[in-house]
């Protein structure tokens, strides 16, 4: 399964992913339409700024997801095959247990309906909106093995550039 990975050194903090996320979860699905909608379309990922680093944070769709475990109404469920954690707004009672147990703090809140809000990994899209919006490709959508290979190759490139053969 493809996942959303973050190449942490690449984020410039432009927040384009956040805007794209909110627009994708609006009714009009256009920026100019979305900004006038009620309820306000909300982002489901967050660019944090800590220790002078910019870190995009989004639902990792964890295995044995704690948010799903604590959800008493069945609003949060995890697909047995894709492992995607989805949220059913009709069953949510806004108890915020999920928010409390999420280790990453990426379960947000829709103020108007007082319900939880989280990444659904854009079920209508081939590539999630945040990934497509990222101008520096800090966000990528790929298989875990593919991402590891990418990281490996980048690390190898650094080694290759510094390594000299003694003649």
């Amino acid at each position: 399964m493809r996942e959303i990975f973050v190449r942490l050194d690449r984020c410039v903090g432009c927040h384009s992913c956040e805007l794209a996320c909110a627009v994708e979860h609006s009714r009009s699905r256009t920026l100019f339409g979305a900004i006038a909608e009620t309820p306000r379309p909300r982002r489901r990922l967050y660019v944090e700024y800590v220790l002078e680093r910019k870190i995009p944070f989004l639902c990792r769709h964890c295995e044995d997801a704690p948010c799903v475990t604590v959800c008493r109404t069945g609003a949060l469920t995890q697909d047995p095959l894709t492992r995607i954690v989805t949220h059913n707004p009709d069953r949510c009672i806004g108890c915020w247990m999920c928010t409390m147990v999420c280790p990453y703090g990426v379960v947000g809140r829709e103020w108007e309906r007082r319900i939880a809000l989280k990444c659904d990994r854009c079920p209508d899209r081939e590539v999630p909106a945040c990934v497509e919006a990222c101008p520096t490709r800090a966000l990528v959508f790929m298989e875990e093995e593919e991402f590891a290979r990418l990281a490996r190759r980048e690390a190898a490139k650094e080694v290759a550039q510094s390594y000299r053969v003694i003649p």
Partner: protein
Amino acid sequence: MEERILRRSVDPASQAMLSLAARQGLETAWDRLEKQQPQCGFGELGLCCRHCNMGPCRIDPFGEGPARGVCGATADTMVARGLLRAIAAGAAAHSDHARDVAHTLKMTAQGKAGGYEIKNEAKLRRLAAEYGIPEAGRPKEEVALDLAEAALGEFGQQEGPIRFTRRAPPKRVALWEKLGIDPRGIDREIVEIMHRTHMGVDHDYINLILHGLRASLADGWGGSMIATELQDVLFGVPQPKRAEANLGVLKQDQVNIIVHGHEPILSEMIVAAAEDPELVALAKQVGAEGINVAGICCTGNEVLMRHGIPIAGNFLHQELAVMTGAVEAVVVDVQCIFPVLADLSACYHTKFISTSPKAKFPGAVHMEFHEETAYETARAIVRAAVENYPNRNQGRVFIPDVKSECMVGFSVEAILEALGGSLDPLLGAVRSGAIKGIVAVVGCNNPKIQQDYGHVNLVRELIRNNVLVVTTGCNAIACAKAGLLLPEAAAQAGDGLKGVCQSLGIPPVLHMGSCVDISRILVACAAIANALGVDISDLPVAGAAPEWMSEKAVSIGAYVVASGIFTVLGTVPQVLGSPNVAHLLTVGAEGVVGGKFAVEPDPFKAARLILDHIAAKRAALGL
């Protein structure tokens, strides 16, 4: 042809070139736009501010994140300040162009300019009289010197008025004075924008936008109008003439020189040098049949309307022209020039020659142009192009066989002449309803809109509904390529307009020149309003920029609205992050200046907005 290419342009010449570009892996503005997707939403909404180093700041349009910049600036302030800076840049571009023209006139009067002359003495004397400069019995050089100095003085003057603003109807001038937006000096208003939009100065979006209108008026009725009028003195008043348009004007067996940019000061001399017998002989010597100059963008419009020099295309043709492999030199001055032309030219034998000390391009050959040695430099440039002809790889040449005939050069003077010396026949046609109204369709290309789709469809829709269209800039070139600038195009017009065009022998779409020549349209509007004893805002007229992209277009839009004219934009300006500013521009402005903006990318819907507006204005006039 691939759907992807057809979606980029309606022009068959562009389609052919884009297809070639795709085959050869050549990148164009359309590809670069794709690579920019998605573009920054904060920028699109005007909600980012880089005006100080506490920032950059952004405001969250969804209300979750920050609602203010570090200084406390709101979305209204940020958007208004951004809009004003665009107006400042646009007004500066037009007006600095005008300054160069006034300077050239001054040097010509002093006998210091190499190769220029006063081609239209009658207009010189008319303008001098307008400025209150004594002219009777004085030699033209003396009058020209006084006129040039008076015009140059208006850039730095601290108190108004700017002379040509008084061409506007008295009601309009009184309104500007009442609102405090009658411009004082051209440079002053631009500088004041930079001051007001500095950190910690003007934060009231209404106060900001009113000043933006003042600076834009200093452009439309100041800088742009000075450029137009003094160019007419130096190079002649355009008269109707036939010419050809589109990439098919490039010649397989001749030295092709493209002039691109905005100022005729350079291109006039290139045109003259290309006729120099010595250089023509040299061209024959290197195996070419002759020297073919063709224009792109507004410098192209300038030589098109004064000399019938063929026009190779509009803004988005600049890369495509080089890709024909048949261009010996692209000679540029200022504005709307893609810096990537340097890299693209390097793929061919084409020399990319920059000429302005203000506009240098890494990778270009710089042959700096100064008035004193204008003709000599132009000769050197043309010579470089001719000597480059043997380097052309004829096997690589592909010139699409696409060109159209056009009739161009409808200055206000030429329109009056076509009408038999008075506005009456036109006013009569408007009164009778044969012509419902007059609409200026102007502006750029923008790869966000299928090239020429917005231009051509809006214009066709308007003339079909008996609206006389006047055009400048890249819309004019789009219309030329589409065959709309011909008297024969009257067949596409509604019956009323068709009759008027056929009886006068004019096209239903009148080419009035380059983008600074939108000032000609203002003059025409003022003359019509004055003849009817009303304000410009009472007239059944409108403006449209279906494919605009530049800051100059922002300034133009602002001065057209501030002159009382309803204006429809085809691409969304970066203001929607402030509902207050957007409301002021699209609704509130009408109650203040009598004109307002609308945004409508669909040219058919835009036509409907305009036709409804014209109908309302006609009803109010009792027509």
